């Protein structure tokens, strides 16, 4: 039986449809909730978010994977209401965006405790919501190298993935040697890991995307739309054509079965200004037309946005 955890309960993978695999309803660094400059009323938050999800649905989007980690403003009750009212499946995560977004309680925790936290959120539920996490988020802290805490989180994630069958998504694919060493030590097949942000402007040059794919890992080109051409681009932006060429080169090298794509957009950011004009719908409005113009066929597009994510997200146990 194919099964994926969404915030409204498990669904068959066949129902996922078009998947945006690395997105955020709203992300904020831990502590940003104390700073009123970022606060929004519920009216504003729904007002910014619902139209984007509705448009995503209208374009044919099926599933929105929210990879906002445990201390980053993850708000599962809110996601449940958004999903129920817009018809978009929402998958929530357990885990952390990086060691530097894990608050002291978790920063001090043992690997074993982190495993139990992740497994509980995957098999029992997140907090009091009853919703089960569908993916595990891990990541590399700012600075470019995995910290000891990052490594503990990766190891705990690997064990939780093996115990539950849920896959792992990473924030950043730099320092992949250390990540893959941990996954090998724990015996986790690398096709259960999506190494994300292989395409971002800061790290693309340092990311061994083909090496990761050759080892069997999945590779995420999932910061599509963060472009230097934007009015006010973030520091991780990249020229549009450069990212697209990178992606097409990767696909044409034979890595289509290993590739996933997403926009990493915030519907309504929580602790930062966000990036004006960038939404999950970049995938439909810009990326897919670009891919067609570059000669990719419908079946390849389907592989990237439907089949690969379905295979990745399906609980394997």
């Amino acid at each position, binding site marked *: 039986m194919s099964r994926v955890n969404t915030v409204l309960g498990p669904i068959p993978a066949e129902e996922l449809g078009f998947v945006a695999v690395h997105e955020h309803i709203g992300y904020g660094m831990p*502590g940003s909730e*104390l700073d*009123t400059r970022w606060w929004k009323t519920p009216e504003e938050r729904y007002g910014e978010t619902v139209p984007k999800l509705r448009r995503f649905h209208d374009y044919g989007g099926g599933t929105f994977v929210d990879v906002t980690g445990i201390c980053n403003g993850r708000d599962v009750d809110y996601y449940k209401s958004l999903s129920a009212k817009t018809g978009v499946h929402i998958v929530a995560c357990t885990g952390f965006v990086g060691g530097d977004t894990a608050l002291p309680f978790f920063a001090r925790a043992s690997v074993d405790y982190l495993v139990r936290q992740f497994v509980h959120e995957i098999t029992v539920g997140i907090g009091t919501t009853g919703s089960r996490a569908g993916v595990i988020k891990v990541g590399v802290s700012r600075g470019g190298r995995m910290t000891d805490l990052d490594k503990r989180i990766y190891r705990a994630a690997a064990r939780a993935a093996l115990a539950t069958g849920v896959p792992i998504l990473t924030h950043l694919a730099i320092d992949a040697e250390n990540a893959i060493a941990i996954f090998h030590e724990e015996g986790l097949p690398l096709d259960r890991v999506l190494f994300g942000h292989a395409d971002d402007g800061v790290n693309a040059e340092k990311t061994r995307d083909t090496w990761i794919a050759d080892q069997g890992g999945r590779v995420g080109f999932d910061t599509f739309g963060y472009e230097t051409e934007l009015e006010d681009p973030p520091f991780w932006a990249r020229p549009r054509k450069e990212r697209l060429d990178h992606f097409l080169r990767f696909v044409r090298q034979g890595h289509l079965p290993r590739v996933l794509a997403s926009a990493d957009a915030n519907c309504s950011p929580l602790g930062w200004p966000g990036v004006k004009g960038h939404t999950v719908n970049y995938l439909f409005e810009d990326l897919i037309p670009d891919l067609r113009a570059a000669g990719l066929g419908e079946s390849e597009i389907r592989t990237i946005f439907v089949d690969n994510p379905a295979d990745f997200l399906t609980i394997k146990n």
Partner: protein
Amino acid sequence: MTANSNTVNTVLGPVHADELGIVAVHEALLSVVPGAEHAFDAAIDRAEVFATLAAKLTDFRDKGGRTIVDSTGMFHGRDVRLYESLSRATGVHIVASTGMGPEEMLGGYFLTPQTNPPTPWPAEKFADLFTREVTEGMVVPRVERRGAAGLVATAASRGGMTPTDESLFRGAARSALHTGVPLSVRFGDDAVHDLGVVLDEKLPAGRVVVGGLDRADAVAAGAPFRIARLGAYVALDNVGADDAEHITDKERAALVAELVAAGHADRVLLSGNATGVARGLPGRDLPYSHVLTNFVPLLLAQGVSDQDVHHLLVDNPRDLLTVR
């Protein structure tokens, strides 16, 4: 807040300073290690937390206590609305704090912000964050502001003040200077050095309390006397702690007697640093009334006068907490 008032900021609003009575100046009500609110095995039942805290506050009141200061700052479980209900239900004045620290207890928003490079927050930004908790009210995160914070609390890392700790201390000092509420600090490895950082911000020493001066290392270094001579308040606020890190109550009572004999009766504060309800850490399960029931008799036995005890428990905290 109005300058030069005779009031103290409590969670139910300003209270005339003379109404404070006996004060426990450094305690914790709900103490939650940042992040523990998300722990799968640490559910917080508000009704149960309320009942536990209400019982402890009622015991404190029954033993003569009138005001309790929650010195945990803005990011360690502070729950302003719960404290309002507790104060109404028990009749105990509750003074809550803004501030945070040490560095290890901060969220990534302050340490690795989404900028390139991810430079930690400077003093001025901390000052602004803390000041607005006094001038505009304490935050219920992403929901609303409530009453004004009654003090700014921060701490330095045990291994010694880090650059971010220093930003916290300087920001907290500027906030205290700007708003008139006092500053409560817990030192790292050198109390005199850490006090020096806030004095360097031109905050008068009489607006600062240095806590934890009954730590064995501080006593060995003579820090309680040195801090008192600099004009700051000396908090012996681990009364009841019975561990290797601190001196014993008997030694603590002797230290108080020495400080009083040296002319510092107007600079000493006492408290238990008890944890009402703890999540994510063991906490110190001690009645808030321990100073009154167990420690005051030791002071009297040391020859400290009733009048001096009154200074320590009533006059000194009143003078410290009054908004200047």
